[in-house]
């Protein structure tokens, strides 16, 4: 394999991993930075995204209490899942903001963290009870499998390229939301000074709920993309939470740029370590986080520590 | 003898110069008040001297020690105490425990290895706490959780904590804000007693001009980060620059 092809492969592998991290971390970071809400249950949104996508797109024989009704699923195809999942998880996000986040905005970070961690466990167990603890993997139809020829270089994995492109589009949409819409403007202002936004006559709870739900929808999409790259089982919500948390704090809480940069950094580190020292691939993420936080305790783009 | 001296003390936040080449001197056993309109830089000045902020430029000399760059606990151990503008107390601890924290710091320094010694065996600490509580007249509330005190009492507790650190020089940031007239008067008396009976040097930041003009030996007027006047209460009362800084130029 040519050096160039290796480099290309390295790039799309890093980026596709970074994509999943970023999509999940973005919503967590928004909730943390803007609403001052630590939401461990964010992992459940990834879990829901992956499972809902799975059962929208295909049919499966399942275990758990739904096992008797096997096969379960709508079998609408992968593209339908990509459209439906964000809508459904968005709605779940709205409910979560109302029922879980809202009563806890005034409580301490520690209480928030613990309660949402408990909720994550509850939701995970519900999924396991419904469809069993076994794993599933996404089938991919023709348009998503195989390779794309890169003239003069070689080939690249088609699906990984799609994942990256899809993530870039989603991030652009998020950026446009922040930059060009009234609600985005209100959220940016509200991040700085929520009370002042209210003093301009804006019911800040609405844009906040909206951005929370958008973050949820992104985690749900992360669930489909991550689910399609890896397998889907009830513990993926808790598993993705750790790299997502690392991305958030390494990037700096509340900074969209920070989240993206940290996601890329972790993606590249992971891929690079996998090449030279695969046993330490995951460990390298933790090492990187320790080093960066020791040098800059607020993360790369963090302005201040969120205490309270 | 000069106890505290700042040289060229400057602090800027981004483009804003909050404290601009300030030079002050505080003599031993003097009561100095710092006044000035909102946003004049009074709090920043105190924060610079007591180590909460690091100066952008300049030095703070205390008995020939340069305080710039030292941590708050080191500065406190050198004998500079401080009470805060908002009641900075330990809400879930009892009143006695609140003051005990400071008494331990005064008795045994910034850190000791005594985690196996019961704290009710430290008579000197108890004595120091009792003295401080007596001074602020809170001895009857010793076993009450601090959070349940009325606001004025919290402020007095705050002062008691400052006192128990055994300072030679005490910075007091608006000690009477939010107090009733009676409490204010008590606090004023307390400040005077600290100066006369304990020989403490006191730097007072205060908005209540009655108190300032009543108790101060010297008044410093800060306006937009600079010292614009410096003198006895009478000198300040008649200073035109001061009046205009406060009132906008014209006598009412």
């Amino acid at each position, binding site marked *: 394999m040519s050096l160039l092809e290796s480099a290309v492969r390295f790039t799309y592998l890093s980026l596709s991993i970074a994509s999943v991290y970023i999509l999940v971390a973005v919503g967590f970071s928004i909730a943390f930075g803007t609403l001052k809400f*630590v939401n461990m249950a964010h992992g459940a949104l990834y879990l829901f995204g992956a499972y809902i996508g799975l059962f929208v797109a295909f049919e499966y024989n399942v275990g758990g209490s739904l096992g008797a009704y096997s096969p379960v699923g709508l079998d609408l195809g992968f593209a339908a899942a990509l459209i439906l999942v964000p809508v459904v998880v968005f709605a779940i996000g709205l409910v979560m903001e109302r029922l879980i986040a809202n009563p806890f905005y005034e*409580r301490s970070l*520690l209480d928030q*963290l*613990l*309660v949402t*961690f*408990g*909720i994550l466990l*509850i939701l995970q*167990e*519900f999924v396991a*009870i419904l469809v069993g603890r076994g794993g599933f993997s996404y089938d991919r139809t023709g348009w998503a499998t195989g390779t794309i020829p890169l003239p003069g270089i070689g080939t690249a994995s088609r699906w990984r390229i799609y994942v990256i492109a899809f993530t870039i589009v989603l991030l652009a949409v998020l950026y446009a939301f922040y930059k060009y819409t009234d609600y985005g403007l209100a959220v940016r202002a509200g991040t700085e000074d929520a009370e002042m936004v209210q003093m301009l006559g804006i019911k800040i709870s609405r844009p906040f709920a909206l951005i929370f739900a958008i973050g949820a929808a992104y985690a749900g999409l992360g669930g489909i993309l991550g689910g399609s790259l890896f397998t889907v089982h009830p513990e993926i919500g808790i598993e993705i939470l*750790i790299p997502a*948390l*690392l991305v958030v704090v390494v990037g700096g*809480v509340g900074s969209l740029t920070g989240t993206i940069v940290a996601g890329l950094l972790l993606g590249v580190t992971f891929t690079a370590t996998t090449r030279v020292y695969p*046993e*330490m691939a995951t*460990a390298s993420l*933790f*090492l990187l*986080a*320790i080093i960066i*936080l*020791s040098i800059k*305790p607020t993360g790369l783009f963090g302005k201040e*520590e969120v*205490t*309270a | 003898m000069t106890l505290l001296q700042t040289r060229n003390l400057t602090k800027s936040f981004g483009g804003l110069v909050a404290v601009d080449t300030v030079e002050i001197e505080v003599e031993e056993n003097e009561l100095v008040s710092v006044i000035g309109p909102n946003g004049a830089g009074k709090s920043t000045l105190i924060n610079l001297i007591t180590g909460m902020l690091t100066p952008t430029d300049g030095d703070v000399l205390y008995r020939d020690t340069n305080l710039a760059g030292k*941590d*708050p*606990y080191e500065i*406190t*151990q050198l004998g500079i105490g401080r009470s*805060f503008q908002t009641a*900075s*107390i*330990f*809400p*879930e*601890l009892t009143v006695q*425990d*609140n003051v*005990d*924290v*400071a008494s*331990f*710091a*005064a008795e045994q320094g*910034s*850190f000791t290895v*005594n*985690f196996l*010694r019961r*704290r*009710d065996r430290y008579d000197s600490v108890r004595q120091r706490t009792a003295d401080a509580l007596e001074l602020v007249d809170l001895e009857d509330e010793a076993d009450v959780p601090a959070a349940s005190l009325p606001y004025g009492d919290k402020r007095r507790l705050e002062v008691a*904590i400052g006192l*128990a*650190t055994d300072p030679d020089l005490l910075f007091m940031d608006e000690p009477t804000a939010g107090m009733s007239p009676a409490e204010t008067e008590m606090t004023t008396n307390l400040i005077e007693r600290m100066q006369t009976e304990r020989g403490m040097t006191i730097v007072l930041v205060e908005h209540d001009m009655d108190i300032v003009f009543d108790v101060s030996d010297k008044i410093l007027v800060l306006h937009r980060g600079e010292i614009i006047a410096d003198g006895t209460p009478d000198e300040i009362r008649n200073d035109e620059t001061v009046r205009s800084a406060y009132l906008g130029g014209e006598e009412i």
Partner: protein
Amino acid sequence: MSEETAQQLTDTDAAILSWETWDRVKHTERFAIVAAVVFVALWSWLFARAPITSELGGYHSLATTILIWSVFAIGFNLLLGQTGLLSFGHAMFWGGGGYAAALVSLHVYGDPVLMLVVGTTFTLLLAALTGVIALRLHAVYFAIITLAMGQLLYYLATSPLRPITGGRNGLTGIQLEPIFGLVYLGMPLPGIFGTLWVNYEYLLVATVFVLVIAFVNRIRKSPYGLIFRAIRENEQRVSFVGLNVWRYKFAAFLMSGGIVGLGGSLMTIESQFAGLGSLYWITSGEVVIMTVLGGVGTLFGPVLGAVIFLYFEGVVDGFPIVGRYWLLMLATVFTAIVWKYPDGLWGMLKLIASRIRSSVEDNP
């Protein structure tokens, strides 16, 4: 308090008849120790063998395991409950102590006391190293960096250090020698002692448990206890009364790590195994759940939390049908407790007790 006498402690009639006596006694140091001794003396028997209570399905080795995890939770709580620092990486001390104890028994000598000493010493060193870095951060950042450190150690133990740690398989074949060459831990105790405590192993665990309670209780009553709580409530003010906050936090971190390491070494002695699971972050999460469930900042709350958690994991787990849902049930209880009773079950019990008491006092 110096006048407290054994009379007051044993004279339970007086304690019950007079609230004043009770209020005075319950906060004394000796009361805590006596309570701990009475608890461990009866615990295994009540849990595993007594008529009626053992019908709940307890068994002796779980009783022992619960005491060991209680040591873990008490040590963890010394940091979280006293100074307010939430560590999500305390498994590194638990597992670190466990591995150190296992290694000394495999390569040097398997005297349980030596294992405890080496395990605890190693953990203290580990805490010193990690504390220097982690204590610069606050709140969620502190939680994350401790999580990262714990996970780093976990992955190091998994692969690069496999020759030492045994990797995924852990360390097996740990042989215990008699303590000081005299007493085998597996040796049964005679007569009534056998009925109560079964064997010397339980006696060792119970002794460590009581010592840890006494130690932590003493810390709480020392200047450190006061300063730790002051740091939790208002760190800035503590430094402005002239105390070196960093050093006190470091001391709390060391003591907490050391106790947890002691517990981890004990676990190795009990299970004769040291494995990666003990270093995994889920273990850190479990001790957080236990401590918070029981009652953050209380002396006995973490013990209560450990009892409940391990009862669910070890007994409810085996129940027909509902057993499958033990984690769901536990997570639900946990969430509800944090939601409604931030002071945990211990706090809830105290609240209920004080309500009952005030109603009793109102209607004599």
